[in-house]
């Protein structure tokens, strides 16, 4: 998934990766391309994790894990960092999801249950500001509940923002007509993906 997502990102893109699965995208920069990674806590040109023992507790990413800097990096404060996000300067953001609707709505910050501690971080800012939003996620929850739905039931992070979903079963575009299959994972059939998607899924042949 992460590798396929990386292969769809254009050369020289400014990219923000969400916490968790999306972080894996950084491992698969395609040959001949260069991505500049932005982390919203104030670093552009983020490099990989440091060697053990080389960590600086004040050089971390948005997930609060130690990172390094690449040549051409720069530090800035949160105001400037979110100016980059809100101002539309980040090209691609890859985020995790709890739910994605066929209109491109994303829910990834709260289950909405009464005892949940609500915590949004920078997700709503990224969703509102970044040009292209990719989602990378397991196709269903651990107990098999579909995450791709006609309507999200969890509180939204943003409306009509997701353009493509990379799951363990398929790559699916969000189009004006709903979910459109783009590519199946090896050994997976259209029917298997469709069965695990709680919304209409257009097969490859119906592509306009």
């Amino acid at each position, binding site marked *: 998934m992460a590798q396929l997502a990386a292969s769809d990102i254009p050369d020289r893109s400014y990219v923000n990766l969400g916490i968790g699965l999306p972080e894996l995208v950084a491992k698969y920069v395609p040959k001949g391309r260069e991505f500049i990674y932005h982390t919203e806590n104030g*670093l552009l040109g983020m490099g990989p994790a440091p060697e053990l023992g080389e960590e600086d507790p004040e050089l971390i990413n948005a997930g*609060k894990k130690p990172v390094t800097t690449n040549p051409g990096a720069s530090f*800035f404060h*949160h105001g400037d960092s*979110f100016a980059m996000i809100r101002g539309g300067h980040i090209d691609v953001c890859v985020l995790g999801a709890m739910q994605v609707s066929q209109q491109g709505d994303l829910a990834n910050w709260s289950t909405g249950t009464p005892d949940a501690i609500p915590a949004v971080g920078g997700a709503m800012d990224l969703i509102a*500001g970044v040009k292209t939003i990719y989602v990378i996620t397991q196709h269903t929850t651990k107990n098999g509940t579909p995450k791709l739905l006609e309507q999200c039931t969890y509180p939204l992070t943003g409306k009509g923002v997701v353009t493509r979903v990379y799951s363990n079963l398929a790559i699916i575009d969000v189009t004006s007509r709903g979910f459109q299959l783009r590519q199946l994972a090896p050994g997976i059939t259209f029917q298997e993906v469709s069965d695990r998607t709680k919304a209409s899924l257009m097969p490859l042949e119906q592509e306009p």
Partner: protein
Amino acid sequence: MIDKQVISTALAVADIPDGACVMIGGFGEAGSPTELIHALIDQGAKNLTIINNNTGNGEIGLAALIGNGQVKKMICSYPRSRHSKIFPELYRAGKIELELVPQGTLAERIRAGGAGIPAFYTATTVGTQLADGKETRTIDGRDYVLEYGLQADYALIKCEYADLTGNLTYNKTARNFNPLMCMAANITIVQARKLVGPGAIDPEHVITPNIFVDHIVEISTPLIEADLIAENRRYP
């Protein structure tokens, strides 16, 4: 000559009254003024409103301040994290208020508070429940919500270098909210890893100009939060 040095963290935070609104810099551990927070615990001010991105980790720093019952309300973007347990318990028990603000809106509201902008429009939260009850407006065909600037009575800040006049630099991603909070607080109290003379910081490299800084304490070997948490340490 202007000299904003204060000789102890205790003196630096001595005047913070009950009910004050206090901005605390840092994103997780990076840039967190742990020694100043501990001094505020010793000092004992109550009913505080605290503005920080998080709610602290383990039982030290901001988490300990909350655990000590000094905080009435948190304004933050992400009140839970791997090592955060004190805030979630109090929140579930209804013993602490929470105003949840998206991280970028939080940063911009603090910047606005410091820059004399009382309110601004942003697309962040449009169409979500965090926009409930907020005024909206369509500008050039896109919807935005109205957000208000945030100001505070005090800011507690950690920096790398400070000169005696109050010019500051930060270490890497420890910069985060600190420069914005310096601008938005009435009184800004700084713990500096290294205090230097006026002119020792190149005017081109100053991140926070001295106009935003009131008191400075030198803490040359600050606590490392991750180590304290690994050792299950608590404060006091």
